[in-house]
Each structure stands twice: as C-alpha cells, then as structure tokens.
C-alpha cells in the first residue's frame, strides 16, 4: 500500500528472496502485469498496480560487496538505506545523498532517483550509481553502466524498465556522525532566496521549512537550515527502529487548518528562538520523521496527498509565491512544507525529477474534490512556469502534466519492459 493511504487495496504479492528465483517469477508474465515494490514509501500510484501482481523486493537485501577503502557498496535492490547505513557509517562512509527517510530500499531509491538536502552539491542518487543489474522479462540479465541508454532510462525509471536486482553506488566519506550548521529564521521568500544562494557556497546541506499557513505580514516566513558534516568522532549509528509509532489512524481533524496553523506558528517561534549555530546527529538532521513510526496515520483514514514540484531557475521565486498564495486563499494549509533550491548538476535519468530551480514539497489531508481542486490550481502555476511534478509523491498527475514536465517521456517509453507497469504509468502513458 502506498504511503499516502489514499487507496487501501491489497494486491497479490510474491516475495523474491534469492536473485536466482527472479527469472522464474518473471517468465511468462502477461503484458503490464508486474511491478517490483520495496518498503512502500512512495506516496501515491507509482508503487501500486491494479489488476497486476506486486513483487516484494524487501527480502532480496544482501550486501554483495563493500569496499571499505574505496567506499563502493554493491547490494541487492531490497536492502534498506536503514540497513546500509548501519554497515557503512561505522566505517566512515555515508550515502552520497539521502531522502528524508531511511526506510526505503536501494532499488526504490534508484527507481525514483531520490534527492536530498545536498542536491545543490551532490545531485541526485543516480549521479553516484556506478552500475546496476537489470533483469528484463525476456530473461536477459544486464549489467548497466552510465552512458548506456537503458541505464539512463532505469535511473528514475519508476521500476518500469525491468527488475532492478542490484545496485553499485559510490559512497561519500564522513569524519563523524554529527552535522553542524546554522539555523536562520526568514520572514519573506526573497529573504530565503538570498540566504540559500549565500549558504550554498559553503554548506553541503541546505533546506527550509515554510510556514505556509501564515498570511499578511507573516506570509512566506520560515526557517532555513544549512549544515556540513562535523569532524569526528565516528559515534553511534542511528537507532534501527522508531521509538514511537502511531498505532491507528488518527481522527481526520488531527491535521486540519486550525491545528496546522497553530502548530506552524508555534514551530516557527520555537525554531526562531533556536536560531544560530547547531550541531546534531545525522539521524535527527536527515530523518526527523523516522523517529515516529507510521506517521502517515496522523492524516486519518482518508489519507493525504503529497505534492512536490520543481520550478526552473529562470522563473525565480514568483511561482512559489503564487502557489503559497493559492493555498492560503483557499483556506488550506500544508503541515510539512519544504522549500529547497536544486543545483545545476544533471542526473543521468531520463525521468529524473530534479532540475535546477526551486522545489516545493507540500502535503494536504485528503478532502476529496476540495483538495483536488487546489492541486489543480497548483498544477496550472507549475505548468505555466515550465516546472514538473515528482512521480514518487503523486497520486493524480494528468497525462498532460506529465508530458509537459518530462520532455524525455517519449524517449523513456521505448525502454519500458512490456511486462512491467504501475497505476501511475497506466495513467500518464499512451
């Protein structure tokens, strides 16, 4: 089931435990019948397949080799980033970039070409993949490397180009398990732009939280954080499992306009008071939400929509301002609004989401047509600005929106393995 919890269907599922079983599982599949899934952290429809079978990859999670000296990790696709970190961090290595949760698989991270707070300095994960093993439904076992067209299609290819069996990634060296940096409150979007531009010169990681329930003079305020890895010692690895977990779906009122408004105002004040230098463990900096298991249940039984877009650099901050304006004007508010400037480093992936410019990530409790109407308005702004939406977060992207955002979509479609599909792909492909 997808993380957004909009649909709660169960799909037939087969489990892959050893790589040598894969050929048999794929053999004689009907067309568009299978999709590999990992830990189910994609929010919408890119990890579901109505009428097809899912392939659970999480048990195919062996480390094939780990070169301590060179920092090269080759592992089966189902290895979670959580497990990978437990092995590489004590040896002084970290993932070249990481999404905001470590409960995703390596294969899923490649299939979505994930990005992180260091995108402006490191690019996407796909920029650091040295090789990957892909099994096509016809039985061909391929070892793909950068430069190969099928490699480019598979990076960010949403698992549609075949079954990713293993991935080899170049790690980045760390001298300690803490990051240290600066926290700054800003009161307008222009202020954010100036802060980000300056910080990117000296900081590896930058990100901002926006209070998108604020209006009037407080409109566009938020907290900007920039950090670098701190010098030693190589201390503790993250706690393997969340200490707290949300046991059941919360009432739908839990995350609603009044609570979000109150929370955001409070959060802004608390963080503003903590402005200045900070130092914290990587788990708190990169993975704050991983401390709470099943936090998606806070949005209640109807689930929620994530919405992440990127606006090209040339458009500046104006489209983001228009989007925030549209949100507050319609009485909506996003609980976790995140703003980040992507850098110029291009990913090899044909369907890779990031491009140089501003990315805004939002989430909205599902209120049916009301929510969809707002998201439609946001779409208009993104499309007019020449931006695109992130498939990993999406449950409703239209074909038009997909085609306008991804100029390489046609080139990509030629590489799709005929046995593979997803609800997302069914919705956007021709």
């Amino acid at each position: 089931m997808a993380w957004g919890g909009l649909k709660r269907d169960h799909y037939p599922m087969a489990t892959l435990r050893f790589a040598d079983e894969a050929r048999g599982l794929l053999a004689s599949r009907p067309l568009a019948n299978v999709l590999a899934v990992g830990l189910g952290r994609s929010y919408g429809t890119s990890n579901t397949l109505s009428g097809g079978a899912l392939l659970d990859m999480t048990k195919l999670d062996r480390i094939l080799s780990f070169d301590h000296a060179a920092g090269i990790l080759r592992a089966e696709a189902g290895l979670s980033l959580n497990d990978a970190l437990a092995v590489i961090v004590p040896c002084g290595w970290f993932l070249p970039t990481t999404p905001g949760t470590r409960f995703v698989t390596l294969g899923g991270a490649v299939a979505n070409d994930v990005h992180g707070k260091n995108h402006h300095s490191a690019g996407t994960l796909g920029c650091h993949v040295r090789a990957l093993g892909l099994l096509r439904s016809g039985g061909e076992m391929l070892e793909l490397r950068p430069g190969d067209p099928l490699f480019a299609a598979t990076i960010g290819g949403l698992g549609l180009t075949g079954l990713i069996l293993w991935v080899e990634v170049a790690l980045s060296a760390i001298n300690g398990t803490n990051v240290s940096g600066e926290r700054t409150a800003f009161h307008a979007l222009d202020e954010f732009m100036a802060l980000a531009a300056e910080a990117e010169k000296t900081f590896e990681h930058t990100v901002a939280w926006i209070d998108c329930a604020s209006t009037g003079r407080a409109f566009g305020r938020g907290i900007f954080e920039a950090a670098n890895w701190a010098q030693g010692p190589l201390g503790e690895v993250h706690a393997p499992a969340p200490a707290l977990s949300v046991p059941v779906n919360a009432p739908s009122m839990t995350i609603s306009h009044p609570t979000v408004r109150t929370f955001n105002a409070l959060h802004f004040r608390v963080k503003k008071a903590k402005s200045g230098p900070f130092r914290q463990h990587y788990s708190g900096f990169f993975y704050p939400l991983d401390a709470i298991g099943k936090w998606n249940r806070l949005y209640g039984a109807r689930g929620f929509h994530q919405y992440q877009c990127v606006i090209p650099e040339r458009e500046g901050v104006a489209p983001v301002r228009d989007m925030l304006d549209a949100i507050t004007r319609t009485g909506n508010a996003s609980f976790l609004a995140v703003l980040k400037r992507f850098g110029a480093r291009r990913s090899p992936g044909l369907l890779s989401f990031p491009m140089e410019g501003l990315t805004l990530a939002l989430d909205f409790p599902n209120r049916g047509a009301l929510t969809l109407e707002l998201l439609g308005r946001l779409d208009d702004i993104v499309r007019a600005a020449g931006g695109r939406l992130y498939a990993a977060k999406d449950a409703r992207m239209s074909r038009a929106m997909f085609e306008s955002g991804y100029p390489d979509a046609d080139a990509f479609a030629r590489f799709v393995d005929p046995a593979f599909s997803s609800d997302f792909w069914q919705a956007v492909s021709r």
Partner: protein
Amino acid sequence: MARRGTRGTNAARIIVLGATSAIAIQMCRVLARDGAELMLVGRAALRLEAIAADLMARGARACHVSVQDLSLAADAQRLTAGWVANLGGKVDAVYLFFGILGDQEAARSDLAELEAILVTNFTAAAHWCQAAATILEKQKSGGLIAITSVAGDRGRQSNYAYGAAKAGLSVFVEGIAHRLAPSGARAVAVKLGMVETPMTEGRNGASVLRVSPESIATPLARLARGKSKPIIYLPWFWRPAMLAVRALPVSLFHRSRL
C-alpha cells in the same frame, strides 16, 4: 572458501546446518555483527556464497561455505568433524535449521512424500545432532541448537507427519542435553511457532501470532553461548498457547480443523 575480516580473535565459531533458511539468514546477521566465524552448510552453492558475502560485509570474522544435501546423513560424523577442523578445531555452537514442511495431504497416500518428511525432519536431523553431540562432548563445551516446532506438541490432521518428526527430534535433542550435561556441553530444542518464511507463505493461520524472522534472530543467536533449558519455545507465548491446545478436550479438538 574463507574470507578474512578484521575483527578480534575471540569470535564465536558457529556451524549452521540449513543456512539458506530465512530464519538462519537473519540469525547469522546478528552473529556476524558480533564478529562470529561461520560455517554455512546447505544445498544451493550460489545462495550460500551470496549469504556469505553479505555476512562478511556485516561484520563476520570469516565465513566458510560447504555444499551438502543435509537430508543425506550417512557421512554426518566425518563431515561435521571436517567443518570443526575448518573452524580451527573448536566449535561454540552447531545450529540445525534444515527441514521441510512437506505435503501432509499427499503424504496420506504417497509413501515417498511421507518418508521424505520423516527422514529429512527426523532421521537425518537426528544423525547430524548425534554427530554434533559427539564432538561437543569430547571438547567439553559448546551447544547444539536444533530448530523444532510447536507442531510436535499435539498431533493435528493438517500436519501430523511433520509434527511427529519434529516431536521426535525435540525428544532426541532433550536426550542429548541429558547426555551432555556431565561434560559441560549443552543441547537445546527450540520449538518455533509460526514465522513468516517461505515455508509458511500462502498458508492460512492467525497472522497476529506470526512473527518475522528478524524478531526471533537475536534470541536464537544468544543461544550460541548462553545457558538454556533443553526445550524452549520461541516466541515465549507459544508455551502457554500449546499448554492450552494440549488441554483441549478431545471432544472439542476433534471438531476443529486445526
């Protein structure tokens, strides 16, 4: 094949019979984190090699593999001695994980199926246990840990062949524990409840009682060096649960489809 890691020399030396089992894999990861030296035995060479590489990356001091069909136990004594020699002449624990659930329905009429269930789960297993016991007794230390099943606690129409073999193995290992007691070596039969493995995939049963291999990996790994009773239940709640199942009156039990 032996790969050398970087950990200290006080590593536990472990033989795992049936190392490609989903539960064995998770337990070996726990042992690897503590820098154990492992001898992995099973049928599938490629799978054993992949598991060994993974365990090395996760901290194992060394990992050896031996390809062997464990349902054939004629050479158990000699092979076990050879594996102990590969580990440097001493072993801290021998784990027995291999087993087959078989097809109870088919075993009603198909004698070959019935025999496969009984031979793999009991006869062969007993031979391997006996071989391990002899070595442990001689070195006056170490433990034999055999995986059995709560299915052996009361015969049920759905799996009495498997249950009977596992019941037999539990008693066999209990006897070995008695035999080894004066020497200082140990033996324990671990009665597992339902675990999410390929063996139980697609089978019905109360899913709330089903646990993941990961969740029992640490208690299993602890048995390598820790003291324990000759028969334990894992997870613990299966002891009272099976007590209740055994206490069910026949009139009631025979009306169930357990």
